[in-house]
């Protein structure tokens, strides 16, 4: 993931607050909807999962794929976005 998307930059720029899960980079409408169906309605819930998996990339990717069927790029975007957010705000 050499270049970061606009969404990534926006998400990483500020505390996530009550942002919806689709505000995460790599999570579009479809994935966002699937995640909401599973109870991951806010970005911070996904962050919680990310943290409870100890920020492990492999596990988080696996979880994201399993939960909403994200492809490799989406997994990478979402992981990078959350990790970077944690680096700056945690």
């Amino acid at each position, binding site marked *: 993931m050499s270049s970061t998307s606009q969404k990534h930059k926006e998400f990483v720029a500020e505390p996530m607050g009550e942002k919806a899960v689709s505000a995460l980079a790599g999570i579009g409408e479809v994935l966002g909807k699937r995640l909401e169906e*599973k109870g991951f309605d806010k970005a911070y819930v996904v962050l919680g999962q990310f943290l*409870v*998996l*100890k920020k492990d990339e492999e596990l988080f990717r*696996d*979880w994201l794929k*399993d939960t909403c069927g994200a492809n490799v790029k989406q997994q990478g975007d979402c992981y990078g976005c959350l990790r970077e957010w944690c680096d700056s705000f945690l």
Partner: protein
Amino acid sequence: MPVFVEDPAQFSKPRLKSELIAHNVTLPAAESKKHVYLELYLKYIALKSAADFSSDEEDVQDSQDCEEEKKKNPEMINPCGLTDDELKATLLKYGFKAGPIVATTRPTYERKLQNLLEPTEHRQNGDTRDEDQYSEEDLEDSGSEQGILEENQVDDIQIGRHFRKNLNAEFCYHQCFMPSSRMRVQRDPGCFEYNPRRNAGNHGNAAEMSGTEERRPQIPLSPVTHEALQSRTSSVLGLATGSPVHPQSSPLGGGGDPDSTHSSRSFSITQMIEKNLVSSSRSAVKSGLNGSSPQGPSQRPHWQESAMEDKFTMTNSSLCITAKSPHWKRQIKEEPITDVLMEMFPETEPTPTGISATRRRPIKGAAGRPVSFKYPDLLASPMAQQRQAVEHRLVPLWVQILVFLGLCSLIYVLYAAMDNSLDNPFVSLLDNLSLETATETEGMLLHTEH
């Protein structure tokens, strides 16, 4: 590698039932016939203990599907039969430090465990469940040929496997006191007290097979033996290894417990293993109440649990260090002790099984090894670090002394120079002063004379 598997077709219906319960398999209707149970048993349990391929596929399919199927998943596949703690312990055994296992993370960790299991599955057939192996190795104190063979294999094994081995060794370390006492007490009476009786023939194999009630009064069980036995039955009760068990536990665990004494008293290793299997499967019936899993391993997970819980209190690094040492120590210790055994039991014939029985000895030696041997790395590592530190410092120190000497000489030279230079002005000053005063006095004197 010989695996002693009983034919499930010979199982009684209640036993099959309890096995199924122990494996979290949903039972068929109550009035079903035995073959229904047998089918289920073969489908779930035998497959599980053989290899996980089919259930793996199921898992992959399930994981790609929706949630309802995933909820069914836990009953279907092997890692799902474990509790959260067991799953975590198993992952740790494979060298993976799992985070908190909660509802949302559990499927992920289960998949992770299966990924870790896969490479090892291909290498050793029919031994996918590491608990199986551990239980066997534990019951026989990992001294059987199998254990030794595997140890010899360790070198050419992948890392995950190696980790597992280390942790396995860790177990021996963890139980270093209990099993050793158990084996010593159980074995030695078996050897020295029991042999004559068997030779006399008044208590033949029939008596051995028949039951313990006959036997118990005859054998004075020392407290240690009781403890040891309880340590076995503690799995039934779900207690920790060394923890004292209430007296009523031994009658409670009467199913598995007496058999273990039998097995320890008889010499033939095959008989022993069979007994262990029987006892373990019986205790599986009991532990089925606890919701714990499979046949042989039914004792194991609890041991594991206790071991793992203890382990969590340690640091992980020290864990690895302690784990490695018993492993190679054990290999080293093997040869001398077999000789000792041969000396101790010259009358026993070195049959193939008998030899495997003698091989069991080394593990006892390993388990009973004094504590100081357990931490060679730990003890050595600080020393080595110090030595390394000294070595790192040695060359600079040498230079430092030279520099120090040079500085000393320099300071001395400076001091000497300063000494001289200090002397001179004062002397000259004093000289001048004395000269001036002399002239002044002379002048005064001249004035007064005039």
